[in-house]
């Protein structure tokens, strides 16, 4: 049996706002298997984003263990962490595309960071933009794309390096509801048809209802877990 894609054991994270310590995570345990589709819910300040950053290897926990594909991220140096991030597909609420690059260039950039060859980049970019239905828009810059289109480019970019899982932070949080429905459909299809493991933070009930599993967070702890 392969190691879980993500496994967190007793995660703690303490920030210092001035002299006041803030406990963002107070012992979180989480296991995500391949093909899972998980939504993390909770009010703002409950520690969702902190958890997401740690799962995304952008931040290290203060205490506890964090395994990604069986590797303890505590044992990794900065370069190894960077390499690990090639295997994680981030989708942000505010898309975070690089404004000066076209849709195609944004994808290719992500692939070039992972060291993919130019020929492979070309082909893969077109395939992925086809998957999210934006093949005809690939020469457009983010400012020339609608919010929904930008988010689809961002999802394609997250898939660029064939990641072991997608990490989404409010993927529909910044687009209108009609477009959000398209995005939700796309995300669902990725999970069902392509078997992409997805971990997301969201408030969008329509998106939550499509997931396989939800966890509720409050004050840095998981308080409720449901399997849909």
């Amino acid at each position: 049996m392969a190691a879980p894609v993500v496994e967190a054991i007793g995660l703690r994270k303490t920030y210092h706002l001035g002299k006041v310590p803030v406990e963002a995570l107070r012992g979180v345990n989480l296991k995500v298997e391949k093909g899972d589709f998980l939504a993390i819910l909770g009010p703002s300040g409950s520690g969702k984003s902190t958890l997401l950053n740690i799962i995304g290897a952008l931040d290290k926990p203060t205490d506890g263990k964090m395994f990604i594909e069986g590797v303890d991220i505590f044992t990794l140096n900065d370069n190894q962490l960077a390499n690990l991030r090639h295997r994680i597909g981030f989708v942000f609420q505010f898309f975070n595309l690089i404004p000066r690059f076209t849709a195609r260039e944004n994808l290719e950039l992500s692939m070039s960071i992972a060291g993919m060859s130019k020929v492979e980049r070309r082909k893969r970019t077109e395939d992925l933009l086809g998957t999210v239905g934006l093949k005809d828009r690939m020469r457009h810059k983010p400012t020339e794309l609608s919010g929904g289109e930008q988010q689809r480019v961002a999802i394609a970019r997250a898939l660029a390096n064939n990641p072991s899982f997608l990490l989404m932070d409010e993927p529909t949080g910044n687009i209108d509801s009609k477009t959000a429905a398209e995005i939700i459909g796309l995300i669902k299809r990725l999970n069902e048809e392509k078997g992409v493991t997805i971990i997301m933070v969201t408030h969008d009930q329509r998106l939550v209802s499509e997931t396989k599993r939800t966890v509720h967070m409050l004050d840095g702890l998981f308080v409720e877990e449901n399997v849909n």
Partner: protein
Amino acid sequence: MKALDIFSYSISSIKLRKLRAGLTTLGVVIGIAAIVALLSLSQGFQGSIAAQVQKGFATNTVIVSTQGGSPQATGSDLKLFVNDTQTIDQIGNVTMSVAVIQKSVYLKVGNKTLAVSIVGVDFDKYAEIYSSTFAAESGSIPSSPQNETVVIGKRVNDPWENGTLFSNVNDQAEIIWSTRSGFALKNESYTGVVAAVLKEVGGFSLGGTADSTVYIPLLQAQSFFGSDECNAIIVQLESDSEATIESFTEAIKEAFGDQVSVMSSTAVLDTVSSLFSTIEIFLTGIAGISLLVAGIGIMNIMIVSLMERTREIGILKALGMRGRTVLLIFLGEAIIIGLMGAAIGIASGWGLANVFSMVGFSALGQGLTKGQGLTITPTLTPTVFFGAFAFGLLVSVVFALYPAWRASKLKPVEALRYE
């Protein structure tokens, strides 16, 4: 991330802010251009002086005089006389010595008068030492000249360089020497015949043949000026090696004491080049300051750029870019700016030097340089070329290091949160 991908990312960042990158580059351009222009002019100047020194001054000849070679450095009571050549000829390694009597006189041809320098010298020996310059363009230099024989330099023949001749071969030329007797000026004169016009020499005359000089036989000079005192003795040595010149100098000191000096072309060139290297250090320093300012400009712009691109750097790091790669992207931008600045700077500095040598110096130095045929051709030596390139690049990179390092150390979570 592959080097080429890093490079093209740097390019795309520069393209995004063309005006800003252009202005930053301009700073480097000005600094490099100033260095290149100043140094290539200075080296060209030095080169043409060296060439002129060598032209009018065979390297195996030295000049013995009581004046240290410069008219200001008097202060010696000792006088050299024509027959001192006999003493000098006794010194080892000496092949020949020629006494030179030099005065300022007026030359009158027809009804025109010209102030010239007159030199009394043994024509045969002088012609042997300065065979390339003491040569007739028209007429001929007689080997056992009559007392009345006069040989004139090109600038006495054609003083205004426009074909209006002052005197020519076979002209009767009256040589007028003004002496003071008490308060009264007394003119002495005799009439000579121009036997030859010398070829144009150009440049300085450090003891050698000069264009604006009239030459008469030594004996005639002795009797006309009524003195055996000579201004200098030109000595030809067996070789131009430093040891030969040095041992000769020692021997002269022994014979005449410390009151005479020996000037060699090597010594003159040494003085010239050490003078110029001092000037060059000074000029490079000044130009270096402008490059320093350019470097601070690069740093300033990079820090602003770092602020603006914090979020972008966060995205790149979230996509798995290494800190080192971020550093290289920023350094890459600085290298591109440095390379462009250096290339444009060298080209425009070179152009500036040429324009300046044509316009500036000919206007500035009409009397000083043109009359003596000294032109400055700017010289861009490989040292200056590559030095300027390396310097431009170095300044750009050094000043980009700090912002690049800061960019590479940004924490992804904080960078992503940055608005």
